[in-house]
């Protein structure tokens, strides 16, 4: 009896074994795609150690060791480039981090609106810009601020506030602030959604108790709502610190002009301009590689810090 049972068990586990291999084979095409598009490009990091030229075989090029990682130290032009690009990258990242409280306050004050339909309309319409592309944001900015067709210039001229249209776009002034403003316009309403849902999970008993104690609107916000939202805020803050160097390039690529290049060129855009436009493949790879490694370190540091402070990891 025991023997039969054992045999049946064996057979079942053998079936499972075959099934497991079947499952693997059915999934293999997808695993191959992941390997090709996520892992294979990593071999490209080797370009950073060779004098790679487009169109040549890597084997026919000279191994140069860490030359391209050291270049910024010996070449003063590249050094100035790196300093400028890092300044822009950090300036825009810190503008974002410095104002990362905004979505939280957006959610808090939105919840203070008692008339529900108004609240719903505001919430729906302010999230729409999140779903349009940066090219469309560019088009929107152009329709508002361009020299001859812009709404703002038309309005200013009509109200006789200015004599000639103002060149809002063709300038190198306030690039960081305007880029930040475009990003805020696009994402503020969307980023607030997370806080709006956390708001609903705060125990309403707390508010009732505070009301009995005579707490006013601001006292309740300050002592109940904000502390209730801080965990969410903290996680998002840690994530944005992990992404300090990754401010992406789409926005800056699109808004880049000869005029504002000095201030808009962030790290990703610099890698693109050097590598694909300037054909300095090895150097650009070295810069990109350093960026990836620093980002990964930042992310894990932020995660470790989060564990240390709150006893919870962020991913």
């Amino acid at each position, binding site marked *: 009896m025991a023997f039969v049972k054992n045999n049946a068990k064996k057979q079942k586990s053998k079936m499972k*074994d075959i*099934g*497991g*291999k079947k*499952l*693997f084979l*059915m*999934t293999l095409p*997808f*695993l191959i*795609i*992941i390997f090709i*598009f*996520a*892992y*294979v490009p*990593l*071999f*490209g990091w080797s370009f950073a150690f060779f004098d790679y030229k487009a169109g040549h075989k890597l084997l026919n090029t000279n191994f140069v060791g860490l030359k391209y990682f050291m270049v910024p130290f010996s070449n003063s032009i590249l050094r100035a480039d790196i300093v400028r690009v890092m300044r822009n990258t950090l300036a825009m990242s810190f503008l974002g981090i410095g104002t990362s409280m905004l979505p939280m306050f957006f959610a808090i*004050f*939105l919840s*203070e*609106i*008692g008339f529900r339909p108004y609240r719903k*309309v*505001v919430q*729906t319409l*302010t999230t*729409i810009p999140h779903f*349009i*592309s940066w*090219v*469309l944001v*560019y*088009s929107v900015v152009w*329709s508002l601020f361009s020299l001859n067709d812009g*709404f703002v210039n*038309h309005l200013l*001229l*009509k109200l006789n506030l200015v004599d000639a249209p103002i060149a809002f776009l063709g300038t190198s002034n306030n690039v960081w602030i305007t880029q930040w403003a475009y990003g805020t*316009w696009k994402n*503020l309403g*969307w980023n607030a*959604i*997370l806080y709006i849902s956390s*708001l*609903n999970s705060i125990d309403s008993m707390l508010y009732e108790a505070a009301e009995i104690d005579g707490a006013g*609107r601001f006292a*309740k916000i300050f002592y109940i709502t904000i502390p209730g939202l801080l965990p969410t805020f903290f*996680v998002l803050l840690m994530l944005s610190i992990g992404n300090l160097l990754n401010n992406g*390039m*789409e926005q800056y690529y699109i808004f880049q002009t000869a005029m504002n290049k000095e201030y808009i060129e962030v790290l990703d855009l610099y*890698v*693109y301009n050097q*590598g694909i436009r300037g054909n300095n*493949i090895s150097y650009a*790879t070295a810069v*990109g590689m350093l960026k*990836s490694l620093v980002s*990964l370190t930042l992310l894990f540091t932020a995660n470790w810090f989060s564990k240390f402070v709150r006893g919870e990891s962020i991913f």
Partner: protein
Amino acid sequence: MKKQKNLTAGNVIFNIINYTIFGLFTIICIFPFYYILINTISDNKLVSMGRIMFVPQGIHFENYISAFRIKNLPNAAFISLSRTVLGTVLVIIASSFPGYTLSKKEFWHRSFWYRFIVATMYFNAGIIPVYVTYKNLGLINNYLVYLLPSMVSPFNLVLCKTYIESIPQSLEESAEIDGAGYFIRFTRIIFPLIKPIVATIAVFSAVGHWNAFMDTVLYTSKTKLFTLQYILYLYLNEATALAEVIKSDPAAGANIDPATMLTPTAVRYTITMITVLPVLFVYPFFQKYFIKGIMLGAVKG
């Protein structure tokens, strides 16, 4: 969530300020789209004089008809639409099916392969190595570059896998006894059950494909592969490209009515509207899926 019945002066002032600020921000979010829209349907001569600010005048729809006569535009619209549809279908397949197989404990070396997939969320080879890899694969100037790299998203796959794991095993067991294989069980039983999560993934993927821009910049140089987003970018940036477009309009010679004749501004505004309208139309219907999406991201993240 709170009842404010006491109408003290402070409360009234607070409410006025609060309602006004949110009202203004909402207007800032929406007015540009309205402004662009009324400028595409108004008399083009008045538009170029800057007279259309709040109310459309001399309404006509010639601009939209002329826009589709622009040489590259119908093709760009086709590329954008087709990559959105095909890309979304591929994303759905590539997140739900591997999500199902990896939810099975008997999967050959499951934990290794699962980590193999999840690890890709945390690193990125960078622009240049990716570019060179695509070049070696023959993906430069190839339509497939729009579809394949974005197809398997580890994030979506994990979402599907987690969702499938929450479905009771017993639902599958009866089919297993009837001798149905994994594939049949997936298509007949599991896939219909995971529709809510699939809908969320589909909506995000479709918006992503429609809005995609950098892949055209990085990996294509053939006019045939340009998307609507890219064409719009070209026209916004390059006055010469626009002049060509207007010259190439076969009707431009015949059309001398200044009210409906294409102008550079009209081309820009009209293409903007064509590109933005699908998103604006779709958004209200799918809002709940978008909001669900951010919640899922938060739980995971």
